[in-house]
Structures are given as structure tokens and as C-alpha cells.
């Protein structure tokens, strides 16, 4: 019977140390999330400026650029999946991967060949375990993406898009998690290339003329400089939003884990007490019955 008690005590101790870890992870995530959201807002002005310029160009109807018109010479499609490097974030990575699988299935159904680009160790682990071909992957900074990494990813994707013939890709999709607020993060699929300028198209009053831009040195050169930057800015924004979402998901998951650990500790404490009382009761009844046997 004493063995029973010892088992419960050991379980309580290990759950307590787990709880400490969960709590620490929760606090770490909570402290980083502020920084991640700051970064999202810091990248905002750049993205807005680029988007405004790009949509102004689009509004002129002069936009006839290889980044804006769909390619027809290839059936290959690139999909970039943005997941996390570490677990302990609930269903965060699993959700993104599931959404990607759905997208891949849909694209395959349309007769397209999917080329995978991955960001985040969890995604890499998922695909290497299933021995699926991955074109390229980036790992190591999913919770604090740097401009350099975003540039690297964008360069790889743009390069694939610009490669001529059947070697290139005709479309680039990004699956990431949009940070709506602390409790809601939405898995989002976005087509990055060819560019559809959706956000930031300013509504102009009827009769108000759009500014007729002069291009320096010429429209093609300007678009050549502008559109890759647009893609880079969008991609960087995707990474930052994913990072913020990851941290929010982690904080929530770790909070739940801490609560569960507390519940477990409570249950085990009760069981241990029961075992202790049972032991005492048994000892007493043994003594009493022994004394009774002697007395009779």
C-alpha cells in the first residue's frame, strides 16, 4: 500500500515540474508577442507605400507586365507553406499543413504540378517523414523572421516565377496564418503571383482624375523595380503575421497545458490522500483485529 502512495507522489512531482515549464513557455510567448506585433506594425508603412504605388499603376490600365499577367506556358505551381519551427503551439502547424494539403489536392485536381516551398521546421519534418519532394525550405526563425530571410524566400520564388519554359512556375501561392487578434488567427491562402492588387486600391470620387504618372526612366523599368518589392513586402508581412499567430497559439496552448497540469495535480493529490487514509484504516483494523484475537 505504501507503494501506491509513492507512485502518486512521484506523479505529482513530475506534473509540477511540467507545469513550471508550461508556465515559462506561456510567459515567453506572451512577452514575445508584443514584439512580434510591433514588427508587424513597423513593416506596415513600407507595405502600404508599395501597395499604393502599385495599385496606382494598375489603375492607369497601363499595367502590362509579366508579374501581372498569368503565365500560360507552364503547369507548375509553387506553394509556400509558413509553419512554425517548434511545437507547443497547439494545432498551429497542423492547421497550416492541413490547409496546404487541401490546396495541393485542389491544384492537382486542376491538372497542375505542385512545387513545395517550406518555411518552418515542423513543415519540413512533416514532408520529409512522408518522403515528399520539397523544392526548398527555410528554418530557424519562424517566431522572429528577419528581412533577410523574407528577401531570400522572395528571391527564390521570383526566380522560379521568372524562369522561362516548363521549368518555371506559373503561379505562386502562400499558405500562412493571419493574425486577427489574440484569440483569432485565420489560416489564409493567398495567390502571390501573378499579382492581383486587391488591398489599398483607393476609392476616388467620381470626376476626380487619377494622377497621370510620369515614369522615370520608363514604365517597364519602374514596374520591374516596383513589383518585386511589392512581392517582398507582402511576403515579409505574411511571415510576420505567421510569427505573431504562432506566438499567440503557443501562449494559448501553454495556458491550457498549465491549467491541465493543475487539474492533474489536484486529482493526484486527492488519490494520494485516499491512499494514505486507506493505509491508516488498514493498519488500525489490523491492530484492532489483532488485539481482539488476543483478548478472546
Amino acid at each position, binding site marked *: 500500500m505504501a507503494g501506491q502512495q509513492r507512485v502518486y507522489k512521484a506523479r505529482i512531482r513530475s506534473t509540477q515540474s511540467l507545469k513550471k515549464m508550461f508556465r515559462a513557455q506561456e510567459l515567453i510567448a506572451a512577452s514575445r508577442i508584443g514584439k512580434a506585433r510591433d514588427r508587424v506594425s513597423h513593416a506596415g508603412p513600407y507595405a502600404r*507605400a508599395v501597395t499604393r504605388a502599385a495599385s496606382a499603376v494598375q489603375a492607369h490600365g497601363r499595367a502590362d507586365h509579366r508579374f501581372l499577367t498569368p503565365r500560360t506556358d507552364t503547369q507548375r505551381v509553387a506553394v509556400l507553406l509558413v509553419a512554425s519551427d517548434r511545437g507547443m503551439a497547439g494545432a498551429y502547424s497542423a492547421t497550416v499543413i492541413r490547409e496546404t494539403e487541401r490546396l495541393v489536392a485542389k491544384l492537382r485536381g486542376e491538372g497542375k504540378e505542385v512545387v513545395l516551398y517550406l518555411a518552418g521546421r515542423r513543415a519540413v519534418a512533416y514532408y520529409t517523414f512522408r518522403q515528399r519532394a520539397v523544392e526548398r525550405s527555410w528554418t530557424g526563425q519562424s517566431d522572429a523572421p528577419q528581412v533577410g530571410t523574407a528577401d531570400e524566400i522572395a528571391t527564390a520564388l521570383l526566380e522560379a516565377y521568372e524562369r522561362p519554359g516548363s521549368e518555371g512556375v506559373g503561379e505562386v501561392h502562400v499558405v500562412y496564418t493571419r493574425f486577427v487578434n489574440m484569440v483569432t488567427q485565420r489560416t489564409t491562402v493567398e495567390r502571390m503571383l501573378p499579382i492581383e492588387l486587391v488591398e489599398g486600391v483607393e476609392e476616388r470620387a467620381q470626376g476626380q482624375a487619377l494622377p497621370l504618372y510620369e515614369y522615370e526612366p520608363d514604365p517597364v523599368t519602374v514596374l520591374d523595380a516596383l513589383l518585386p518589392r511589392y512581392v517582398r513586402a507582402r511576403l515579409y508581412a505574411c511571415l510576420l503575421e505567421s510569427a505573431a499567430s504562432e506566438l499567440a497559439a503557443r501562449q494559448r496552448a501553454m495556458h491550457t497545458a498549465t491549467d491541465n497540469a493543475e487539474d492533474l495535480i489536484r486529482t493526484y493529490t486527492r488519490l494520494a490522500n485516499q491512499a494514505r487514509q486507506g493505509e491508516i484504516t488498514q493498519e488500525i483494523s489490523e491492530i484492532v483485529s489483532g488485539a481482539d484475537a488476543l483478548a478472546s
Partner: protein
Amino acid sequence: MAELEVDIVATDGKVWSGTARQVTAPAADGEIGVLAGHTPLLSVLRPGEVRVTPAGGGAPERWTVEGGFLSVDSDHVTVVVDAATPVAPAAR
């Protein structure tokens, strides 16, 4: 005198914003100076130096930039650059 609304933004945040009398930037075909009332313009920037003369006069603010582009739209100037480092007053 009319003034320009200027925003200078880099990839990782806003560098400078405010009103200015003149903006000078290294455009593709050579240095370009923008004053109030400029026609709408979209220009590629080469690596070089961007100078902004504040509305109140005084010494211009200067940055070394890595290339980007410049847009002018009804006295609103947006300079979008990949990276900008301020030129220290001592280095002038």
C-alpha cells in the same frame, strides 16, 4: 510657399516623415529634385543619397539609400527604399 508632405519608408519601418520644401533623390537618369507642384511621378532610385530640406529651412536631412523608388502624387512624396542610413552631421 507650398510644401511637400514627405514619407520616407524602409522595409523595417518608417524612417522620416514630415513637411519639406524640397526633396532630392538619385533617380535612374540622374539626381532629381522635387518641389511643390511637381507632376505625378514614379521613379526608380539608384543607390545614393536622399536629401530633404525641411519646410522651416535649415540644414537638409540626408540619408544614404540602397535603391528603391520614389512617388510624387499631389504634393505627397513617398520615398520607398530597401535600407536607409542617416548621414551623420560629422561626416558632411
